[in-house]
């Protein structure tokens, strides 16, 4: 759907104040792509609701008019998740951005979906609390819930799904549903909250959430550990997890990426396979014990260098550099696009996956960077190329396919954190078999006309 009729524009304008609905071309173009190469169809208009009732009215009407709708957060997805594939209406949630109430005694907060993660952490930080899921980008809470986002601290603290207690969602036909409760746990009926978390805006629009928070750790210890080869570094990571150490972050980096990071940020890191890790603890002595154990394990795996107790300024720089890895890669290859592999495997297979991926890059003489949230078996390979160069791009697609197939063979998944969006739909049947059909039925049940974020998850 390319454009609204005059009548439709009139109706839409009646749902919100005039400055919160636009058919202007610059606003429409701003809602055409996330960070992936997937291009949608220019939406016919963009609306910025600020109340659940507005969203409800809009969806009841778009459903009746057969207009495709796509919710939009910060647009930082990597698989085309918020891209309007069929035009229609984009519902931008960023103005629905109040932190409604912090409940420090319950370790909870009520938020609207357009609140940004960093802002939330600034506000609840005043109470000594934080919301742990930390994707590299400053995403909205709604986008994080819809993608079930995670980040470097997920190995210890879990993903977004572990922090969502209660939701208000507007269903594709405009009905408002309340799921979950503020109770810390519940066995009451089906877990509807969890169906919406990770559903990528295909089942409804989240307009309010109650999130669990946790106390800011008293002490942390950051470390970098270096190795001579990829196999040793990934074995060390797997062993740290298998032996019961509980790092708060355990990231694997490979020489080429470290090289880019050094050049851009002047970090002075040795350009050999490395682990960035962090440990959180209640006292310095416990952290000292963790340090000793980690050193012993890593030495057994062939570690060649340790820096424990990374100084605070440097620690912040390291994490910023890690969070910006994707941007750094893009800046190093201007004009190119990327495919981001996001497979996850059981941790014992991690070394195999890392070596497999690195070899694949070598064999195909392709440009790519291997890194990942090693602690939870999540591997990223950023493949760099030009979608216009058909041969080159299809080679990258092939490599993406082989890595995912390998991960599935090892009992893993095609996406640990980025979601299916447009880009990974091709893996759904392979990964899920019969349960794919069941997902499809749930989608049809809630959105019989297929208007809610169409073209995502399902082919």
């Amino acid at each position, binding site marked *: 759907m390319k454009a609204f009729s005059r009548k439709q524009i009139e109706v839409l304008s009646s749902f919100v104040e005039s400055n919160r609905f636009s058919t202007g071309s610059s606003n429409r173009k701003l809602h055409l792509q996330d960070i992936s190469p997937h291009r949608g169809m220019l939406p016919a208009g963009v609306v910025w609701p600020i109340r659940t009732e507005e969203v409800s009215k809009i969806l009841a009407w778009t459903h009746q008019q057969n207009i495709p709708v796509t919710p939009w957060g910060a647009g930082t997805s990597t698989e085309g998740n918020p891209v309007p594939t069929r035009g229609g209406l984009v519902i931008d949630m960023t103005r629905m951005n109040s932190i409604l109430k912090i409940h420090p005694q319950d370790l909870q907060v009520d938020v609207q979906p357009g609140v940004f993660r960093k802002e939330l952490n600034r506000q609840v930080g005043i109470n000594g609390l934080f919301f742990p899921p930390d994707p590299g980008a400053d995403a909205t809470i709604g986008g994080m819930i819809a993608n079930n986002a995670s980040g470097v601290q997920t190995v210890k603290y879990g*993903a977004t799904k572990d922090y969502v207690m209660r939701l208000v969602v507007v269903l594709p036909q405009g009905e408002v549903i309340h799921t979950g409760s503020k109770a*810390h746990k519940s*066995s009451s009926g*089906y877990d509807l909250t969890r169906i919406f978390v990770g559903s990528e805006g295909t089942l409804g629009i989240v307009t309010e959430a109650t999130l669990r928070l946790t106390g800011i750790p008293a002490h942390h210890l950051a470390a970098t550990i270096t190795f001579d080869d990829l196999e040793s570094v990934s074995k060390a990571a797997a062993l740290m997890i298998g032996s019961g150490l509980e790092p708060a972050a355990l990231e694997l980096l490979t020489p080429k990426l470290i090289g880019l990071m050094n050049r851009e940020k002047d970090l002075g890191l040795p350009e050999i396979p490395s682990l960035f890790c962090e440990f959180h603890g209640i006292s310095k002595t*416990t952290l000292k014990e963790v340090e000793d154990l980690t050193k012993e394990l890593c030495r057994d795996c062939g570690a060649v260098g340790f820096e424990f107790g990374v100084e605070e300024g440097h620690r912040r720089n390291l994490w910023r550099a890690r969070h910006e890895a994707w941007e750094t890669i893009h800046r190093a290859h201007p004009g190119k696009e990327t495919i981001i592999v996001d497979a996850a495997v059981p*941790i014992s297979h991690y070394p195999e996956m890392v070596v497999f991926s690195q070899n694949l890059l070598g064999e195909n003489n392709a440009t790519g960077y291997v890194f990942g949230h090693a602690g939870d078996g999540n591997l990223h390979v950023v493949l760099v190329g030009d979608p216009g160069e058909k041969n080159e791009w299809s080679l990258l697609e092939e490599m993406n396919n082989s890595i995912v197939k390998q*991960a599935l063979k090892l009992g893993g998944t095609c996406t640990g954190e980025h979601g299916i969006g447009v880009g990974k739909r091709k893996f759904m049947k392979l990964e899920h078999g019969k349960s*794919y059909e069941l*997902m499809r039925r749930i989608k049809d049940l809630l959105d019989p006309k297929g208007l809610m974020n169409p073209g995502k998850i399902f082919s």
Partner: protein
Amino acid sequence: MKEKIKQMLIDVVGDKNFTDHQIDMISYSYDASEHRHRPICGLRVETTQQISEILKIANKERIPVTPRGAGTGLSGMAVPIKGGIVLDLSRMNKIVEISIQDRLAIVQPGVVYAELENALSPHGFFFPPDPASGKVSTLGGNVATNAGGLKGAKYGTTRDYVLGLQVVLPDGRVMRTGSKAMKSVSGFDLTRLFVGSEGTLGVVTEIILKINPRPPATSTALATFDRLDDAGRVVSQIMFTGIIPSALEILGRHTIQAINQNTDLNLPEVDAMILAETNGYTAEETDFQMKKVISVFQKNNPREIKLAKTEEEARGLWMARKSAYGVLARIKTHFVLEDVTVPMANISDLLKGIETIADKYHLQIATFGHAGDGNLHPQILYDGYDAEEVARVEAAISDLFHLAIDLDGTLTGEHGIGISKARYMPLEHDPVALQMMRTLKKTFDPNQILNPGKMAL
């Protein structure tokens, strides 16, 4: 049941695994709740394939099928209220794989919680949900009810540990959900939909569980408080220090009195008693946490604080809490054990509200529970042969549920809805949510054969 169908079922499971003997039908007619209903037959299944074939037959013939683990449920979930077939899963009791390296275990549903514990323990690992019924209840039952336990505040409940499932759908199709990866965002989270679904959406035949390293050191302390308010404050203040105790249990006055009348523990008869346990990898780590807990105790007018110096002493401190259910269960002919859960800061309001309800209906209600995650177990003791008292109990339960919902809570923190709480579902869930649950049920099970009559579906 028609002879022909009976024969078809016998052909699937074999003669010795089919029963319609009266004595077996009586055993299959109840769980740990007050609900009773006999099935027509019971089938002791051993393979996924058998379950698939049974469900195909049942679906075609529209025979109700109720999955059954150990039958320890407290809300009538495994009671075959519409008759039909009981699917006894207790023989599917193999631990398929334990991978310490991957921090996961793959089990069949009939494995008893404690058996998995025993298998993990030599590796220094454990499966944290820890329901008090762990010595008998099955992992399939734990998954189907989303069981929780003492360690909930720190470790969460069963659903936080289920990575993937093999499920037989009501039409006999077998499918898998999830994966062995620690995280995945691939499509809708069907795994979570099955967890806590009380056997109404599918029969779980294999479970991939995340396991945790077991911190070897623990530290235990107990404090008593003359005033409920002080105890309530202690709970939220402890959670607020950032220390998460591995257990934080509370016992109310009536529970303490009942224990004193029935044991020689000689507890001080105060408003509330709080038991805290911290754990960690070293004694130092746990002591450090315990010091913080104790400093919170001290700030809130405790009558007495006891810190266990030896494991023996720790066991002593636990005795009162562990004896509560058993002691209370023997006092009158009947009891109901409720399971309401509220946000932590509302614990003392919940406790006070329960006392008010007890006074209003002249009932003996003894309360204990998992304060750290806001989950209380008011146990209402009554004479089941006294119709007038039974009516008061029912009214009190209704008041209790209203109270929990008013305090932003839930009807059940860990025991499930089953038959007992079905009619209170609209109190907690809005009509759209209830409608969505029912539509999901219909999509999975159009002929309503799987565990019908539960959860207000």
